[in-house]
């Protein structure tokens, strides 16, 4: 099997790790996207503005990468049969799951594992395994 190192993925990952470290070093905050979004649900307070700015920065980063880094984004979320209902169900589960489990791919997967937190290592193993099983059922059994 031929395999070449996906440099842009490696470099993109390193950029995310760097952003996470800088946010923690300067501001003492964790770059966990679900946690930051969850915080935006209760507006006001001194934690609101930095979260809003971080999220706005991410959106801006996505936009900039289209226009200056030549990154192409998918035009729609259509895998095999993504209906609006499937998108809503997936979004709702991602939201409620990251809320109940206190983190998502960035908070547990990068910052949590990055701090060698056992909780985050376990959470990451659980959601990867469950996501793998979900994909298996969806692609190979249904």
């Amino acid at each position, binding site marked *: 099997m031929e395999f070449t*190192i*996906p440099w842009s*993925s*490696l*470099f*993109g*990952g390193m*950029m*995310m*790790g*760097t952003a996470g470290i*800088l946010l*923690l*070093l*300067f501001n*003492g*905050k*964790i770059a966990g*996207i679900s*946690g930051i*979004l*969850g915080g935006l*649900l209760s507006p006001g307070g001194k934690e609101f503005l*930095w979260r809003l*700015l*971080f999220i*706005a*920065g*991410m*959106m801006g980063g*996505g*936009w900039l*990468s*289209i226009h200056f*880094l030549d990154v192409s984004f*998918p035009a729609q*979320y259509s895998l095999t049969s993504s209906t609006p209902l499937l*998108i809503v*169900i*997936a*979004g709702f*589960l*991602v*939201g409620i*799951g*990251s*809320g109940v*489990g*206190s983190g*998502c791919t960035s908070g*547990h997967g990068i910052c949590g594992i*990055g*701090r060698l937190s056992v*909780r985050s290592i376990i959470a990451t193993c659980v*959601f990867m395994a469950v*996501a*793998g*099983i979900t*994909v298996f059922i969806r*692609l190979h059994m249904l």
Partner: protein
Amino acid sequence: MFYVIALLTGLLFGMGMALSGMIDPNLVIAFLDITGHWDPTLIFVMGGALMVFIPGYLLLIKQRQQPLLTETWSLNNNKTIDWRLIIGASLFGVGWGLLGVCPGPAITSLFAGNTDVWLFIAAMMAGLMVSKKLAPIAR
């Protein structure tokens, strides 16, 4: 300065997210589909992030009393492995596996001309809201 850092790190995080390819659900599904045409690319994304974050944490953060611009670290020091963690991660895993989209890539894709993203984010925010009603998230 605190707010400038928040904006700039968000920008860097978003650009990294875009460059890494995680904004493409097909790449995520191909990584999760270990019995199909398995694509290990996502390992390089996470590996790249941890390659920077782990040494950064150990060398720059761990021995510091406080962050450069604030008084305290906002870290979750909860060490208990409880059912909330397992059930939450499992629900998240089902949602992630169904579509291949998680919160970071969705936010990064908001202005990429894909209207499915808006639907996903609306549903995700509803899910987050419900999770807050279930029990306050300790942070």
